């Protein structure tokens, strides 16, 4: 029983990380329909921005994190501006955008690997490393912060989308791009904003992981794919769904270890994913992905 509780707790923490990646990725995918695997590179970059800010520029931790989040937002925005929008101007198919995104992911990850080596780069997190013991469950302040940040990030995003004018513009483009265009919304600008916001949400996830186990160049690939699984399970176009999907995946992976050897973790997640799309392709809350207007 103790083990189950521990696994649940760890699952919640990991799930929070996946959820942050998922809501960011889901926002981008739902609005631009780009299968932005390079989100994984932004995730990784965020960690390294924080690392460099703290270790090389000697900024205090909080400032380093803020710099990293801004850096990530800028990175995501630039990826759209310099890559995707340029390709779209040349009439690229969606598959071409995905291939370019994949190429960018590989390129960035490996550049990081050459510059920083593939070994994990550890950061100083001081007090956050302190253990917290709740009954049989062992966590650190960092882990608790992770869950809190995921909730904060989610709430912030929902408020932004519902209340602010830009948020509403994003929602308009997300549900009916052609109509949004006719009422005068600049799609390109909204896309850039979406990328900035979505990437800013991935940043804390990347940074938190780096603070826990060190920054690694290749971790992003796994996170972005799991994020996309979470989004699909939660329902494309639904931020609450993505949140739920991410948390669900985290719990699933960790509870899976209870009965099955840990090497099979990913296999479990993907297996569940396949079953899920057979039984409920729309996901928890999604709109029908029939997509195109007829």
């Amino acid at each position, binding site marked *: 029983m103790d083990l189950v509780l521990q696994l649940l707790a760890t699952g919640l923490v990991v799930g929070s990380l996946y959820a942050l990646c998922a809501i960011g990725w889901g926002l981008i995918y739902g609005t631009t329909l780009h*299968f932005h695997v390079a989100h994984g590179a932004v995730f990784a970059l965020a960690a390294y921005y924080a690392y460099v800010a703290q270790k090389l520029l000697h900024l205090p931790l909080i400032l380093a994190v803020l710099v990293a989040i801004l850096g990530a937002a800028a990175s995501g925005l630039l990826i759209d501006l310099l890559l995707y929008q340029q390709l779209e101007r*040349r009439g690229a*198919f969606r598959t071409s955008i995905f291939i370019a995104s*994949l190429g960018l992911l590989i390129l960035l990850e490996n550049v990081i690997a050459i510059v920083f080596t593939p070994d994990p780069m550890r950061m100083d997190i001081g007090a956050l490393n302190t253990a917290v013991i709740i009954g049989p469950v062992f966590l650190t302040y960092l882990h608790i912060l992770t869950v809190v940040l995921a909730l904060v990030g989610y709430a912030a995003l929902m408020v932004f989308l519902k209340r602010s004018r830009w948020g509403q513009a994003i929602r308009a483009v997300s549900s009916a791009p052609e109509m949004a265009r006719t009422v005068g919304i600049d799609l390109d600008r909204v896309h850039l904003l979406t990328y900035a916001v979505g990437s800013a949400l991935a940043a804390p996830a990347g940074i938190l992981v780096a603070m826990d186990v060190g920054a690694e160049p290749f971790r992003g690939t796994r996170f972005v794919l799991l994020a996309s699984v979470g989004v699909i399970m939660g329902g494309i176009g639904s931020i609450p769904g993505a949140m739920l999907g991410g948390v669900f995946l985290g719990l699933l992976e960790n509870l899976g270890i209870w009965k099955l050897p840990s*090497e*099979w973790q990913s296999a479990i997640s993907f297996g569940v994913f396949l079953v899920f*799309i057979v039984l409920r*392709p729309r996901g928890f809350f999604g709109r029908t992905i029939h997509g195109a207007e007829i």
Partner: protein
Amino acid sequence: MAAYIAHYLVMVGIYTILATSLNLLVGYSGIFSLAHAAIYGIGAYASALAALKLGLGFWGGLVVAAMVGALAAALVAIPSLRVAGDYYIVASFGLQVVILTVFINWTSFTNGHAGLPGIPRPYVLGLVIDDPFKYVVLSLALAALTYLICLRLTGSAFGRTLRAVREDEIAAAATGKNVVAVKITITTISSALGALAGSLYAHYITYINPTSFTLDESIFITSLVILGGTERLAGPFVGALILLAVPEALKFLAIPDTVAAPMRQILYGALLILFMFVRPEGILGRPRPRSVA
């Protein structure tokens, strides 16, 4: 030196089969799969195990490989293609991850990281193929066969339907095409052929282990397809010729190993991006047709 070139040509043959079969999916049908290395691996392991545990020869192994590869792909394709193409990207990634996990962890079957040594050489009409030169013939012959199969497929009404589905699947459905069935069919065929390449590889190197079938490998195969051109069937062959020569060229520059591997990946990544800009159809592809006027 001659043996070295022979080895290069054998690998070109194997990768041509891999890239041609992936091209059927990515280039011709617009379905993106990240699992081709896993399929390659399934073919290799299936064929190797058929030989080692069941005593089947190379040809029997080929058949087993193709069937198992097709089955694995169908299992993933059927649920995910019914819904939307993007689901297949994620599902194929999942397949890649799961299959690799199986290779590494199902040790009783696959020997895990230690791999499977001692895979027997093929026999063709009583002649054992045991040196690189003979293997070049076998490899290129199978590559040619794959090419002919794909030629037949793409030049037919089926091929026409594939192109229509790729360009506008809603119009295809309205015109009476069973889009999902078509997609599942091509995915299965593509995988059967990819698995075939695995079988060829296993009996050539006579030793296989999981490191040959990772996600990086899937990306490499994708680069071959993109570089060579997605609309021309001979494209993957050219892509293989060029990209397989690159690691050798890098060796000449005396780059330390730790940097060489990521450098290659950077090259492939850059290639993918570059080609999406310059020519989404690749080197040999048909250029976007301009107005006849």
